[in-house]
């Protein structure tokens, strides 16, 4: 597993657990959470960025790779503007697109997201769009040059797990990009399950930040993601073994002997 590296946007990542910066009781927890999670990528909402080393940025360890997100954007145009602001603010050229115009469920708008992906790839960004696990939206994002796609497991912030498991499986199978399961993962076992399925990584924020012990929970997620990844790489065994069949209703006509 030592050489199991996630290649993403020109970077080589050893950790497949991405974390967030929102919802903590105190931002001062973030460095310890980063350490416990063993994470290398951390997302931060541009709306919360105050400027270099001020506010939340002052709590993010220097070795972490920033993944600014466009939280608050309702359209592709707004997402593009936020992305450019992030780059101008020194947050690098990675961007997680969030285009959300529904404030009740916070579900991403696939059409606007794909548009923003296309525009930002042309601007030289490493684009990671947050999407519903919709095959066509994922394909549009892939065609537009996304570095990965980030489908949700359940509505954001719900901690309800892999409610979209069937659709996630389809994206993992069909899309030739890393699939980073984002949103909805509420327990380490769910992150483990996503990784077992073949997800390239998981982004977990609420489940860690809202735990009574965020640091311990960050470590639990680290271990779960590692276990799931190891299981995926090893290959799961058969669920059950069919055993002998007493008769051969479908192939009995062939007889036991080979006959050319």
């Amino acid at each position, binding site marked *: 597993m030592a050489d199991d590296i996630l290649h993403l946007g020109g970077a080589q990542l050893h950790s497949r657990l991405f974390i967030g910066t929102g919802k903590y009781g105190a931002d001062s927890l973030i460095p310890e959470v980063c350490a416990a999670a063993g994470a290398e990528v951390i997302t931060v909402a541009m709306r919360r960025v105050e400027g270099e080393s001020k506010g939340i940025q002052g709590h993010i360890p220097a070795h972490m790779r920033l993944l600014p997100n466009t939280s608050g954007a309702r359209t592709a145009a707004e997402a593009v503007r936020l992305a450019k602001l992030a780059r101008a603010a020194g947050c690098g050229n990675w961007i997680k697109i969030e285009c959300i115009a529904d404030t009740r469920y916070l579900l991403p708008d696939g059409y606007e997201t794909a548009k923003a992906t296309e525009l930002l790839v042309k601007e030289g960004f490493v684009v990671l769009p947050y999407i519903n696990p919709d095959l066509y939206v994922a*394909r549009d994002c892939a065609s537009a040059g996304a570095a990965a796609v980030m489908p949700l497991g359940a509505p954001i912030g719900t901690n309800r797990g892999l409610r979209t498991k069937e659709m996630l*499986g389809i994206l993992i*199978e*069909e899309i*030739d990009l890393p699939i980073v399961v984002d949103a909805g993962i509420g327990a380490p076992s769910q992150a483990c399950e996503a990784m077992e399925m073949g997800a390239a990584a998981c982004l977990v924020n609420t489940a860690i930040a809202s735990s009574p012990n965020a640091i311990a929970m960050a470590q639990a997620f680290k271990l779960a993601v590692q276990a799931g990844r190891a299981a995926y790489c090893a*290959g*799961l*065994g*058969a*669920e*059950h*073994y*069919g055993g002998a*069949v007493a008769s*051969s*209703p*479908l*192939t009995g*006509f*062939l007889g036991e002997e*080979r*006959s*050319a």
Partner: protein
Amino acid sequence: MNTQATFEAFLAQWPREMRASMAANSSPAQVLAALNKESLSPQDFMALLSPAAAPYLEQMAQRARALTLRHFGRAVNLFTPIYVSDYCTNHCRYCGFNTNNKQPRRHLTPDEAFIEAQAIAEMGIQHILVLTGEAPKLSSPAYIGEVCQRIKPLFASVGIEVYSLTEDDYRMLRGKGVDSFTMFQETYNAELYGWLHPKGPKHDYAWRLETPTRAARAGLRSVGIGALLGLDEFIQDAFCTGLHGYWLRHSFPQVDVALSVPRMCPHEGAFEVKHAVDDRQFVQYICALRCFLPRASITVSTREKPSMRDHLIPIGVTRVSAGVSTAVGGRKLEADNAGQFDISDHRSLAEMCAAIEGLGYQPVIKDWEACESE
């Protein structure tokens, strides 16, 4: 999946020696694991084709049957071929149309093709497959297009199984009412392919290999492929055919991938079949294809005997031909030419429908109708 721009590049990831090694090293545990997976990798597919899977044939058939019922129900589509010209400039060592075979040949005019097609339509057939030999001057793309356009009003769907064309040709044919395409690679062994097709335009292995790619790019709705079993080692061509379908399905998600499983008889004409595929291997192949590509239609031709075709329907075959003649003008016109190959199932459409119903399945005459043409 490490997608490549061409199937040739994709296939190159599994060199022949690697394929042989994968087959030899497949274990019963891998076979059973593959049978319990929803989505199979090429490695899983190889395990199901390998000798390690042979003792599990009934389990494979049960799995194939379950997948077929899930995706196709109890429905079997019917079609029939129409051979419009058997002039051919190729030298395929195994084929009845080989240019060296001194036999009467026939080339139907579009009007004659229409008369033949009328006879087929009167049988009740709605899906027709137009076939020619490869004689580009006589049976040019324009000729094929004219024939297809002429007969299209008689049928819901017109497919082609002709020689290797350009993407523009396929686009032109689509405009003439063609909606499906079939082309057999014959063998995925490039060296053997060269020997089998020593002269003529078909000699170009790489051009033929990407023909389904061009048909898919041109927007043909259904793209059918197959290897002629018996030419190369079973495991090699079986694996490559599945891999080809897998790549097409992934590269062209809008295309219906169709698989055919033509099998040579041990003694086919003067051609010596070196790698005859026995019945158990044949069934194993169909089961493995179904498990690997659950949504692909599988066609079994009249090369197979009626009893074999009937047994294969509950396992995984979803498309069969009926009322078949492989001779040009073999239905209405006076045919004095030989067919491309000997057929083993001479049942009419009505007889085939009755046999399908007898199995508890529904014969489907019309499954699709294109509403776009020039």
